[in-house]
């Protein structure tokens, strides 16, 4: 079962002939993901790694019966690529691209609201259901199948957490990177609900950051609706106030969204918060 992706995932790669797209298509295939084709406008008819390339998502989806698309298209063209996947009515779209302008994402978000598609990302590492399917850029070998759901706003920090779990022999049901951008497709809340509903998930690890209010909403949801135990880690405890730390999402706005505030909220609803990434598996196991 797991959530979002599994052995039934039939994946399209938008931007399959680009450097990143090609590299990670190989990685995903090597992991066992069922990549059924790719899209690069103007390169329709070519073949990459034994997979057909199409000019448009609609043609690709019709020809392959794909149900997920992953986007490696550069930022200036990424919003258009997401809109194309929405237009082709793909149920799940995973946008890896970072640096998409806010204005573009506001438009995408409105189009999304009127569609049946779910977007994960952008600016995210994608999804990994260990042993079944990998969509995005997470290094597959650090994960192992199990029953802990992982959800994170961060990219590499997610790997850190997954790696720490695996090192301690704790496997994962699905790992979800929701991305660090201020406007994205899927929130902590969405994923927590899915984990709560997923029979294969027993516990959840949530990796948050300073800035924004997503963690606060997640804490509220956990307090009211989650029956499964949640362990959290929040990055940016020592960040100086008012400076942007890389992520568009990771800015402390006038006292809203500090690490201390988020940690306190999580603890108030029974979530145990780790001090170091290595502490996460200890809390999960205990």
């Amino acid at each position, binding site marked *: 079962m797991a959530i979002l992706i599994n052995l039934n995932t039939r994946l399209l790669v938008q931007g399959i002939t680009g450097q990143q797209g090609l590299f990670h298509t190989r990685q995903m295939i090597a992991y066992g993901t069922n990549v059924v084709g790719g899209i690069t406008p103007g390169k329709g008819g070519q073949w990459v790694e034994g997979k057909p390339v199409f000019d448009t998502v609609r043609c690709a989806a019709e020809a392959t019966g794909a149900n997920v698309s992953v986007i490696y298209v550069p930022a200036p063209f990424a919003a258009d690529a997401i809109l194309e996947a929405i237009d082709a009515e793909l149920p799940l779209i995973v946008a890896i691209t970072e640096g998409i302008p806010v204005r573009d994402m*506001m438009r995408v978000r409105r189009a999304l609201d009127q569609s049946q598609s779910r977007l994960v990302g952008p600016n995210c590492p994608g999804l990994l259901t260990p042993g079944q399917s990998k969509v995005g*850029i997470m290094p597959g070998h650090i994960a192992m199948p199990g029953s802990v759901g992982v959800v994170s706003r961060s990219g590499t920090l997610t790997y*850190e957490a997954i790696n720490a779990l695996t090192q301690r022999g704790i496997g994962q049901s699905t790992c979800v990177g929701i991305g660090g951008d201020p406007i994205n497709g899927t929130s902590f809340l969405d994923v927590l609900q899915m984990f709560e509903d997923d029979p294969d998930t027993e516990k959840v690890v949530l990796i948050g950051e300073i800035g924004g209010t997503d963690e606060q909403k997640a804490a509220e949801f956990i307090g009211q609706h989650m029956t499964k135990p949640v362990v959290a880690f929040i990055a940016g405890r020592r960040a100086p106030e008012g400076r942007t730390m*890389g992520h568009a999402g990771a800015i402390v706005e006038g006292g809203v969204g500090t690490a201390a505030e988020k940690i306190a909220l999580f603890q108030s609803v029974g979530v145990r918060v780790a001090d170091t990434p290595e502490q996460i598996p200890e809390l999960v196991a205990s």
Partner: protein
Amino acid sequence: MNLHEYQAKSRLEAFGIPVPHGQVAGTPQEARRIAENLGGTVVVKAQVLTGGRGKAGGVKLAWTPAEAEAHAQAILGMNIKGHIVRQVLVDPASAIKQEIYLGITNDRAARKPVIICSAEGGMDIEEVNRRKPEAIIREHVDPLLGLCDFQINALASGIELPYPLWKQFRRLAQALYDCFIASDATLCEINPLAITEEGDLLALDAKMSIDDNSLFRHPDLAALRDTSAEPEAETRARAANLSYVRLDGQIGCLVNGAGLAMATMDMTSLYGEADGIGPANFLDIGGGADAETVAAALRIILTDPDVKAILLNIFGGITRADEVARGVIQAFSEFESDLPKIVRLVGTNEEEGRRLLEEAHIPNIITATTLSEAARKAVAAVKGG
């Protein structure tokens, strides 16, 4: 990226918003000439990318050109919150009946732009929000529909704008929204928006911030960036597409990913704070960085004299560990450095990366497996060094 007041006003004017026709001076003499040409009373205003310049004495009224020159003399070179004033704007002074506030920014939670208006202009809007929140009128804008006239009417009605000004106000608010959208702005603010004695609207002061991610499609805006006020390292970091913030510790951090970079800072602080040791910087090389980017990042860290140890923490996903290793080797082939280098390299292509680093025989490399281990070793290296 923030624009100077004079840059923001010139852009607003291009969209049809009335602004005072002042000019920018880099010397007191220039300021005098501008005041002479304008005639009458002028305002001399420090152009710095920070707030609070009024309180710092960076804004002065001058009744004569000689006075304008004297004020410019005093203001130019002033240090306002770490920003050195290199230019002043000399604007004609206006006779004002009322000052209002009008601004547009993005509401993250609502995922929409929001236009904000208040009859209490001329002061910090955050301050108004604390003191008298009911004085602030907000309208969220559907980014697909754009700002509708009825919403502007709601603002005008909400701040009790005199009716004869509504038409002018509608035009101005639409122009502000057009400017906000066309500029990929994250903030477009007119404060104060003056109602003059003649009954016209006039944008006396303006702030604009541009979404850095959008600059690829705004070469004209990108060219407006004033790097004279910021540390050279930040300018260089931006040129290399790095996210860099200088801090006051001793451990130069080079990490891929903002979250991991923050966690790395947190860990070095955690293990080092007892000894007064911490991160010298936040540095995220981003996703998919190549060898050249890594080299550029190391060069920036190596030119910081406070750095006593380097912590390289890479968890490869889209960034490939072998590429990072190549960057490290390239940087250290240029700069000889005896500083301890704590290297943690995991994830995509990690074996290849480790092999490359070993073969390069760079001096004083300390390897680590986990983040905590790397942070502890970095703290130990600074203490020992």
